[in-house]
Structure formats: structure tokens, C-alpha cells
């Protein structure tokens, strides 16, 4: 009886403790967001909220464009590497070393990756700062993360599902494509959100690779022209890089206001992206495994 009571009290304390922490996290997140958005609104100067040469529209575009390109490059690479690690690599010393390298790569400080990108994608190619060098550098940051997510996801899949597929005469590749990848798709979506989030916020890896300025005209959409927003060999600064630059070196008298606006834009962008990606993920999942399964998955979390 006594023990029972004690266990109950411990259970209650743990529950309350976890609630408090959860509330703290939520409060922290909302206050940061609200504060940044509030400052952005307070500092609002209309002429910077545009796609003119002074406006932040350029950086907004650059951010989205570069993150999109880096995901297009890193997602196939990362997912294939994860498939290789989970399904093809035989357990050996070499595999362990590869896995450790991927983990190390995933935790490298981005300034280091930035310098690597500068040396390889800028110096070695005899070019100057350009968007593509920045995109490749971002990809280096994203690939290990996506590899990890894919490998972990595949390793956690119930072995019996694989057996079921093989027993129907499916090949290994068919099993991977038609059973395993669909089963981890929600995780891949989460992984891509995380990778993109890293890209949105990245400054250190880009300052030596994609550059600190942009000189584009939004009336020129010919990708081969150097002043076209679509051109990938022009210099290209993102919102995060712009904030870093404005706070540090700019001599513009409005620089702090612009930085506040950029910060607010960035955080709103990240929010919209996360929500959008999550909804997309859910729609895909629902299409694939059916809505009732998602519901029952939720229900099965008893107390």
C-alpha cells in the first residue's frame, strides 16, 4: 500500500516536472519569436521591404533559392548514402570508419565547412564568391544529416515487412523503393525540414563562399545573365548573412532597423516553411498509409 502510494507520488512529480519543462520551452520559443517579430515591425521601413536594389526581397529570394538548390543536391545524395549504409554496407571496420566520418561531418562547425568550401569551390575553381559554391557548401552540411536520418529510419523498420516483400519475389531494390522508403517517408520529410532549417539560418558557411552582396535585377529572368536572380554563378547573400553583415560592418545609417526586419522575415519564413513541410508530410503519409492508420497511431499513445 505504502509503496503504491510512493510510486504514485513519484509519478505525479515526474509528470508535473515534464509539464513545467515543456511549458518553459514553449514560452521561450514564443517569446523569442514575438520579440523578433515585434522588433521587425517596429523597425519597419517600407523601402527595404521590396525587390529593389536596397530591398530585402533579394535576400529573401536568395535564401529560398539556395536552400532549395542545396536540398535538391543533398537529398538524393544523403538518402542514397543512408540506403547504402543501412542495406548494402557489410558490417566491417571500414563501414564503422565511414559511419564515424559521417557523424563527424555532421557535427563540424559550419565556419570550418565554409573555409573548406572556399578553398575547394572558390579557390580551386579559380572563381570568385558565387551562389553555386555556397549551395555546394550548404549541401556538405546537409548530406550527413540526411544520411543519418535515412540510415536510422531504415534500421528501425520491422524486419518482418522486408521478409514479406522478399517472400513475394520482390528484389532487394524493389523492396527498398516500394516498401522501405515509403515506410520512412515521414522521417525523411522531417530530415529535410531540419536540413533546410540549417540552410535558412546558415551564415558562417556562406560568407566565404556565396559572398556578402547581391547585384540582381528582378526584371531579368534569363538564367545565363549575371544580373538575373536565377543565375547561380553570381554572388548571393542570404537573410542570415545580411543580418550578420549589417550588424557588423555596414555603414548604412538604417542598418539596425534593416537587420531587425531581416530577422523577423527569417523567423517568419522558417515558421511558414516548417508548417508547410509538415502539412505536406502528413498529406503524403495519409495518401500512402491511409488516414485511419494515422488516427490509430495517435490513439495508441495511451496515457
Amino acid at each position, binding site marked *: 500500500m505504502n509503496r503504491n502510494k510512493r510510486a504514485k507520488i513519484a509519478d505525479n512529480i515526474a509528470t508535473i516536472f515534464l509539464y513545467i519543462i515543456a511549458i518553459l520551452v514553449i514560452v521561450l520559443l514564443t517569446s523569442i519569436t514575438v520579440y523578433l517579430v515585434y522588433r521587425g515591425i517596429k523597425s519597419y521601413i517600407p523601402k527595404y521591404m521590396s525587390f529593389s536594389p536596397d530591398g530585402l526581397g533579394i535576400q529573401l529570394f536568395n535564401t529560398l533559392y539556395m536552400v532549395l538548390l542545396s536540398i535538391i543536391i543533398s537529398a538524393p545524395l544523403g538518402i542514397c548514402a543512408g540506403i547504402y549504409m543501412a542495406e548494402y554496407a557489410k558490417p566491417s571496420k571500414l563501414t564503422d570508419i565511414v559511419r564515424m566520418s559521417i557523424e563527424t561531418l555532421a557535427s563540424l562547425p559550419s565556419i570550418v565547412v565554409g573555409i573548406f568550401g572556399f578553398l575547394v569551390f572558390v579557390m580551386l575553381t579559380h572563381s570568385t564568391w558565387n551562389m553555386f559554391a555556397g549551395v555546394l557548401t550548404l549541401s556538405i552540411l546537409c548530406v550527413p544529416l540526411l544520411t543519418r536520418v535515412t540510415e536510422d529510419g531504415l534500421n528501425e523498420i*520491422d524486419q*518482418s*515487412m522486408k*521478409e*514479406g*516483400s*522478399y*517472400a*513475394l*519475389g*520482390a*528484389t532487394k531494390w*524493389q523492396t527498398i523503393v*516500394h*516498401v522501405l522508403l*515509403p*515506410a520512412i517517408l515521414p522521417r525523411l520529410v522531417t530530415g529535410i525540414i531540419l536540413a533546410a532549417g540549417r540552410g535558412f539560418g546558415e551564415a558562417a558557411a556562406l560568407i566565404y563562399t556565396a559572398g556578402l552582396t547581391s547585384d540582381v535585377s528582378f526584371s531579368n529572368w534569363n538564367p545565363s545573365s549575371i544580373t538575373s536572380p536565377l543565375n547561380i554563378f553570381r554572388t548571393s547573400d542570404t537573410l542570415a548573412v545580411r543580418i550578420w553583415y549589417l550588424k557588423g560592418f555596414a555603414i548604412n545609417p538604417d542598418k539596425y532597423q534593416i537587420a531587425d526586419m531581416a530577422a523577423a522575415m527569417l523567423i517568419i519564413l522558417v515558421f511558414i516553411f516548417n508548417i508547410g513541410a509538415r502539412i505536406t508530410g502528413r498529406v503524403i503519409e495519409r495518401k*500512402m*498509409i*491511409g*488516414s*485511419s*492508420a494515422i488516427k*490509430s497511431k495517435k490513439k495508441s499513445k495511451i496515457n
Partner: protein
Amino acid sequence: MSCKLLVENLNLYYSDIQALKDINMGIDEKKITALIGPSGCGKSTFLKTINRMNDLIPGVRITGKMTLDGEDIYSSSNDVTLLRKRVGMVFQKPNPFPVSIYDNIAYGPRRHGLKNKGRLDEIVEKSLKDSAMWDEVKDKLKKSALSLSGGQQQRLCIARALAVEPEVILLDEPTSALDPISTFKIEDLMQTLKETYTVIIVTHNMQQATRVADKTAFFLLGDLIEYDETEVIFTNPQNPKTLEYVSGHFG
């Protein structure tokens, strides 16, 4: 009596542990054969040699001969995916894919190259009818297979195996996770299946073996102790160990 499957001097080793010892048996076409024996005696292992699922386990070594319609299952010229198309398997635990009911059944035919939507529709309907669940699910083919009950999932897995039109169906304790009603449905189903297919079933349930099986094989520690008509095994076995086991005095 024609033998669909002939096993000669079959030995199987997991690395250095021998799990099957010198098995000889012939399995009749369009009959139900039950495999019984205490846990760990090698029933699942034997079943998995028939569709070469053991190929997936590293360190497995097999000697002896196993022929399906006279063709050596383990000859290098035999394509494993084609073999598994001819020899379907249903596992102990239902393992539907996390896709719709329709896509689960269409999975096998699609992997073997069928794209025609009309033909797939036909196969899905026929397989579900053959596994006696068409009426239960015909209105929710697009629903997730995971939304079905355990018993329905298992019958779906049977339908999924039937969809590739196999010749032999291997069932590894297909009802051990199911309630009596679902079990009854599956036993009933087996009786219709044997009109078309050769069925081999592993079971721990003696009544089930007597109810469904034409022949029964008793395994013990990797040996095939006795193999005969089910009636003989359960009423008049030749080996005292078999008698001990089927009468429940094993230990």
C-alpha cells in the same frame, strides 16, 4: 500420388549449429501437410528452405537436394524471385505493408511487371474473394491495411500471397496470434485453398493439425521423426516419441 516437392538428405547449418538433419520427405500436390514439433525443432527453418528465405541469413549452409516439380530449388540457374513467385509464404505475425489494402495485394503482381489497371483490379478482387474477405473490405480498398484487425490482416497477407498465383503456399503458424473465430475462418479457407494449391503449414495446435492436414510431419531437434497420414500420426504413430508428443506427455 504425385509429389510436388521432394526433399532428399537435406541438412542445414546456421554457421556451425546444425538445425536440420538429413531430412527426406515428399510433399503431395494439392494436399495440406502439417509440420509439428516442439519449439526450436526446425519447423520454420525447414519451411524457409522451400522458398529460400534462408538465403537472407548470413552464415546459412545447406547440403542435400530439394526439388519442386523435379527442378532443383538450389541450383544456381534457378531464379530466386521466380521461385518465390511459385512458392508463397505467410508469416506468423501479420506483416501488411503500410499502404492501402489494394496496394498490398497488387504489390506482388506489380513487382513481377504487371501494370494493366484492369487486370490488377481483377487480381485484387479474385485474391480477396479466394481469401474470403472480399465482402468485408470491398468498400474500403483504398483504406490503409494497418487499419484492419489482426485476423483480417492475416487473411490479407494470405490474399497478398495468392495474388502472385503461386503453386505452393507456406504458412508459418498463421493463426497463433488470432482469436478462435479468425482461426476458424483461416482453417476453413485452407480447405478451399488446397483445391488449387499445395499447402504446408507449421502449427503448435494439435487440433488444428488434425482438423486441416492430410499428412503430418513430426520434427524433433532437427530430425524428421515421423511423417505419415495425419490420422496415423495422431492415433497410431510408429515412433514412441511421436506418441509422447501428440498425446501431450512431452518433456
